[in-house]
């Protein structure tokens, strides 16, 4: 068994004159929460659509859990859950009917469906809404319902396209917690998003795309290191003085604080990261090119 959930080699997709994905090579480790970052038109949705067996690439190869999404789409669909950026829910059904319908569409036996639906509703915290019409749900609830939908066949890999778009802060936090729980259940999760702060808190790895090209990929700290950058920490001491430090990652950040307080015995009143995060990384790599 390979350690990669997804392997992409020389992947390109052209829509008429537009090159939506341009010769992308990417490996996504199993069990990771992988953030696909990029502005509109970067090629994120097209890349996810190719992996989700929806779109045929112009050239290159993709492998999802050891299967080709082009030659073995059904094998991929059995093990993959895809949540598109548009909610696309049937407003004329109740919540449990909706999940039951998708369970049936995934060949799950009728006798197993009720228990499965109940379990999924509990997971996404919608049990009280089981019999409510889908149209009565808030956007955040619909988003969680969509997430439950992609879990009906217990896939190993989840592709979530802009899952946090349009959600209020509470719904975003709930979604983030849910994603972390799903990773804890052994699933590999690929999330595309514009909201970098959200990704930063959950992603173990990221890829940055712009104008169809892959600019960088790996753990955020590794990319920062490659770029020669890091997290900029602003420290205010008890005597009123300020100092700036640059660290590579979370671990170095903790080590710095420990050193200042214990080894150097300098009372710290404020310890704030002012830069060097995913947002700075994104801004330093991209040029704002829109296709």
């Amino acid at each position: 068994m390979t350690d990669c959930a997804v392997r992409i080699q020389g992947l390109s997709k052209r829509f008429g004159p537009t090159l939506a994905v341009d010769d992308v090579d990417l490996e996504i480790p199993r069990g990771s929460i992988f953030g696909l970052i990029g502005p509109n038109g970067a090629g994120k949705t097209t890349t996810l659509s190719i992996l989700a067996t929806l779109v045929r690439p112009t050239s290159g190869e993709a492998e999802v859990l050891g299967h080709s999404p082009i030659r073995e789409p059904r094998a991929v669909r059995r093990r993959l859950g895809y949540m598109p950026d548009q909610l696309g829910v049937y407003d004329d059904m109740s919540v449990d009917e909706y999940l039951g319908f998708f369970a049936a569409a995934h060949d799950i036996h009728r006798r197993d469906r009720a228990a499965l639906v109940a379990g999924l509703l509990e997971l996404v915290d919608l049990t009280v809404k089981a019999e409510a019409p889908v149209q009565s749900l808030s956007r955040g609830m619909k988003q969680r319902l969509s997430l439950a939908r992609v879990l009906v066949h217990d896939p190993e890999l989840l592709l979530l396209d802009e899952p946090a778009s349009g959600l209020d802060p509470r719904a975003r936090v709930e979604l983030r917690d849910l994603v972390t729980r799903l990773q804890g259940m052994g699933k590999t999760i690929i999330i595309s998003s514009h909201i970098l702060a959200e990704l930063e808190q959950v992603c173990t790895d990221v890829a940055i795309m712009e104008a169809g090209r892959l600019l960088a990929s790996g753990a955020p700290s590794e990319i920062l290191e490659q770029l020669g950058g890091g997290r900029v920490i602003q420290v205010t001491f008890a005597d009123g003085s300020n100092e700036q430090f640059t660290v590579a990652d979370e671990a170095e950040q903790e080590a710095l604080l420990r050193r200042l307080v214990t080894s150097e015995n300098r009372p710290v009143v404020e310890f704030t990261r002012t830069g060097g995060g995913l947002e700075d990384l994104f801004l330093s790599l991209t040029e704002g090119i829109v296709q």
Partner: protein
Amino acid sequence: MNFATNPVLARELRVRVRSWRAVGALLLYLLLVGLVAWVAYESQRSNTVNRFDGGTVTATETAGIGQSVFEWTILLLLLLVHFSVPGVVSGAIAGERERQTLVPLQVTLLRPISIVLGKISAAVAFILLLIVATMPILAIGYLIGGVSKADVVRALAGVIGTTLVLACVSAWCSAVTRRVQVATVMAYGVMILMTLGSFALYGAAAVLDERDNRFDRTDPPAALLYAAPVVAVADLIADEPDGNINSPFEGLAATSERDGDILDTGIPYWLESTLVLAGISILAVWRASRHVTTPAETER
């Protein structure tokens, strides 16, 4: 996946049947059918008994009344099918696209053909419900006389066949377009082309024939009407013209009888037409499922 357990079909039926719109449509339809049957009955009865013989009605005349009620009810069913099926089915796939629910379906284990057939069979199932609801009215014709069990079976087969053909063609219209409105206009356009278009072609051929008399015959080939399901149904129902002026199908059936002998196969007209329509339907379903199949060259 078993056809009977097709989740698309189950979903469509559940959602459609539980809405008040379906109940309202059924009620309205039954009132309309009842009215048409009553008008047909009264009209035929007054033609039959208002004579100088003291109002005596022979068995043949009674049979004429039964036949008239039956045929007008079937005609109404056929009209309903022509006007409702394109409207109902045209939203099937295009509606999924518009609601953005097609992609979640495409990444399940449902095969494209299951999605298309699920939608078509749901529409056919609704028409079957209307047919079942019409049975008591059709039974009036049967009970009065002049209509055999075979007539009923043939007529209903014709209506169901027409439903299937129009549903398949409308499903294709729905699959090739992105907007329900466009799909609906297209589906009605194709339906009109198949029916009125066929008659227009037949009429034009008749005019040319009469003018030139090139092939030394008075009628154009009935094969020009193969794409119009109503002519095949008329041929199936009124297969023995008896000069009943109140029969809505006799004129149409006579048209199919006057074949120009281009295709003198010895096969009944309705069967030839059915084979052509079956071919059109299979082609439409195949093309519709191709338009739903992924991975595709473009996002669908």
